[in-house]
């Protein structure tokens, strides 16, 4: 290496590196800009065609890494020759060809010349490239931020029922946990719910809402049925508990009365059907058997009372759970609590002791005890104001009113520009997607006919009917 080389070679190498780096950065930025633009277009098209998967975006962004490396490699491949770099260095420093000649011949005799050579400053007007890159990045961000209602042009617009589906899934799980719903049925309902969520389409939301309402109603019916049963069982348990406590409070000489009370208790236990229905009791079988036969010793009676209280509490807890899941009306919960209240056993015991051994019906006494009413002495007379009406010829259909919605859990579906109309009539408020549908079913949406539907209606009535002509 000649002395001139030794002076200029490090600077030349540094200058070449700067040049290559700058060109590589420039190319990488330009390629990245075009890549982001293309990615934005892909994202936009994907969002227009259907649901957008974020994975696509991540793959696109990760693709920037190999793209940058490729840009660097390509720029390295077509980097300016060292001779050209030397020429630029020579030209900038007015070396008069010495730096260029150093690559070909010995220039050591001229080492003093060009000793103060400097690196030629590189200038890159990056405004256009950076502008393009920024525009591409903004475009990509814009394609991600466009609301679905503007971005989605496909026939199958997605319908977000996530919140409703999640709530319904929790209800089904709750019913399954409480053993109200069988496991296989729960699995079937969950599959149905997943299918509804998958097929939810904004172009035909009524179908989705109808399916959701069907599942919700099925779950609600089952829950209400269970609640009714729980209330009935709770009432029976409360009576049994009262009788059991009354038996324990009777004077010692009232064996006969105690035996009669035990028979009544056995009748109540049998009527409660604790081992049947949606809520099966958890009383040990031998104790339950003894209670049904009316052959309980004091210890068993005490244990039975404990078990009755525990079962009553379990029923109350189950109803509380159902209420939390919004499957039953809070009133049902109150009803259950009321049913579970134990009548005054001390009063009943005193009354029975006073009445002696011939009470007509202990159960009726217990119904009356503590409930107020006209005191007509022993026995109650039904109060009848007129003859009972006949239900012949009248059809009644039981309809369970929907649970009053909690507004704090409501979801904004849209904002209307028009002034909301106040219903001045006294018609009851209707809720749910099935509101307004025909009684016979078939449609879950109440369509309001507008003037623009006139032609469609006319076409409907002008169609050729396939019905047979009326017979005379």
């Amino acid at each position, binding site marked *: 290496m000649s002395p001139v080389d030794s002076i200029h070679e490090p600077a030349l190498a540094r200058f070449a590196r700067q040049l290559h780096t700058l060109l590589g950065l420039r190319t990488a930025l330009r390629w990245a800009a075009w890549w982001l633009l293309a990615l934005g277009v892909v994202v936009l098209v994907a969002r227009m065609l259907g649901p957008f998967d974020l994975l696509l975006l991540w793959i696109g962004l990760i693709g920037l890494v190999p793209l940058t490396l490729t840009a660097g490699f390509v720029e390295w491949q077509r980097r300016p020759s060292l001779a050209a770099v030397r*020429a630029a260095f020579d030209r900038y420093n007015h070396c008069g*060809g010495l730096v260029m000649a150093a690559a070909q011949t010995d220039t050591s005799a001229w080492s003093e010349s060009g000793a103060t050579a400097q690196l030629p400053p590189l200038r*890159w007007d990056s405004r256009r490239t950076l502008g393009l890159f920024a525009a591409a990045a903004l475009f990509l961000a814009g394609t991600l931020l466009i609301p679905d209602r503007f971005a989605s042009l496909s026939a199958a617009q997605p319908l977000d029922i996530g919140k409703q589906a999640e709530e319904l899934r929790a209800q089904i799980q709750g019913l399954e946990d409480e053993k109200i719903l069988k496991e296989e049925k729960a699995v079937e309902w969950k599959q149905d719910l997943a299918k509804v969520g998958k097929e939810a389409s904004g172009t035909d939301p009524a179908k989705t809402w109808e399916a959701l309402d069907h599942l919700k109603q099925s779950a609600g019916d089952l829950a209400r049925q269970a609640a009714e049963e729980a209330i009935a069982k709770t009432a029976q348990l409360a009576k049994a508990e009262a009788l059991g406590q009354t038996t324990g409070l009777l004077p010692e000489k009232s064996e006969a009365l105690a035996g009669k009370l035990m028979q009544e208790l056995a009748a109540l236990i049998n009527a409660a059907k604790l081992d049947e229905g949606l809520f099966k009791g958890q009383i040990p079988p031998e104790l339950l058997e003894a209670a049904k036969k009316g052959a309980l010793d004091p210890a068993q009676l005490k244990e039975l009372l404990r078990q009755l209280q525990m079962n009553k509490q379990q029923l109350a807890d189950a109803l509380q759970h159902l209420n939390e899941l919004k499957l039953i009306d809070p009133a049902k919960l109150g009803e259950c609590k009321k049913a579970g209240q134990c009548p005054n056993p001390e009063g009943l015991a005193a009354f029975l002791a006073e009445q002696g051994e011939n009470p007509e019906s202990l159960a009726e006494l217990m119904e009356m005890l503590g409930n107020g009413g006209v005191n007509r002495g022993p026995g109650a007379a039904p109060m009848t104001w007129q003859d009972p009406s006949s239900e012949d010829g009248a059809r009644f259909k039981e309809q369970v009113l929907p649970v009053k919605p909690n507004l704090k859990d409501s979801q904004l579906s849209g904002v209307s520009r028009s002034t909301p109309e106040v219903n001045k009539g006294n018609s009851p408020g209707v809720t749910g997607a099935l509101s307004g549908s025909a009684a016979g079913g078939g449609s879950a949406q109440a369509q309001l006919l507008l003037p623009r539907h006139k032609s469609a209606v006319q076409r409907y009535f002008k169609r050729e009917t396939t019905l047979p002509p009326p017979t005379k």
Partner: protein
Amino acid sequence: MTDSTLLRPDELRPATELTQKILAQLDRALLGRTELHRLVLVGILARGHILLEGLPGLGKTALVKTIGRILQLEFKRVQFTPDLMPGDVLGSHILQETTAGKRELIFQPGPIFTNILLADEINRASPKTQSAMLETMQEGAVTLLGVTRPVPQPFFVLASQNPIELEGTYPLPEAQLDRFLFRLLVNSVNADVLHGIISDRRRGELPEPDWQLSRDQLKSLFRLMDRIFLATAVARYIARLVAATHRGANEATETVNKYITYGASPRAAIAIAEAARAHALIAGRPTVGFEDVKAVAPSVLNHRLILNYQARFDQMDTTKLTADLLARLDETGLKLPADVRLEDIKA
């Protein structure tokens, strides 16, 4: 055989001093022509012929005479006129009687057998006469009646032509123009120079040079010229520059494509390289740089470009075209993108 090693400073310095002395003598003789003198010396060191173009009375003849005196070279002048015949320039055979009483054709050399030939108003002679000098300018020899006679070396033709009063003139053919290394434009001088001329010169007589270059010194300058190093990148630049004068070439500029019918010949590239070497020698550098090429290229190219009619309409001449080409063509060949550039050259 040329020495391929780079000139050492101690070798180059005396030569540079000699060239500076020549220039000093020229500047002393003719006032206000520094750049012209430098280019003329470049042409001589490059052993090229020079076409001086300018109005009468600007000192063209005086310049050539002064050079002859400084270089101590034989100098002859031919005033070209329409009736000038080739024999008047080259020489002719004359029938003479020998001492033995026989008669034979004796060659009588013409004025071209000299070191420096001043062809004054060369465009006034007929093409036949102008072309008579072609062989001599290129080969350094005269062939008459099958006999080739070399002219003395070094041999230079310094021609002058008047750009006005073109009636009755014969513009030089392209082939002959191409043989001139330079076409130098001799422009008017300013008032200060004129004041100096009339103050110092009685009847315009030129002062005698107080220093002259010996023939040996001239030969040594020619030898050193051969050792001025032309780097590959500079040679490439010269090649690209000449190629770019052709319409449709890769690096041809917009003005070239628009105005030029024919570009410069390979002889132009050779001329630029040689002239750039001489320019570097005068500047005291052992290697040719881009600045040397840029300094000599306009004078080399300005008479080798054939322009079209559009150029005349747009008042475009070869000087402007060459300047535009030099400004736009990147010397280094870095081929940087349009938005990336090197900072301006360090002052």
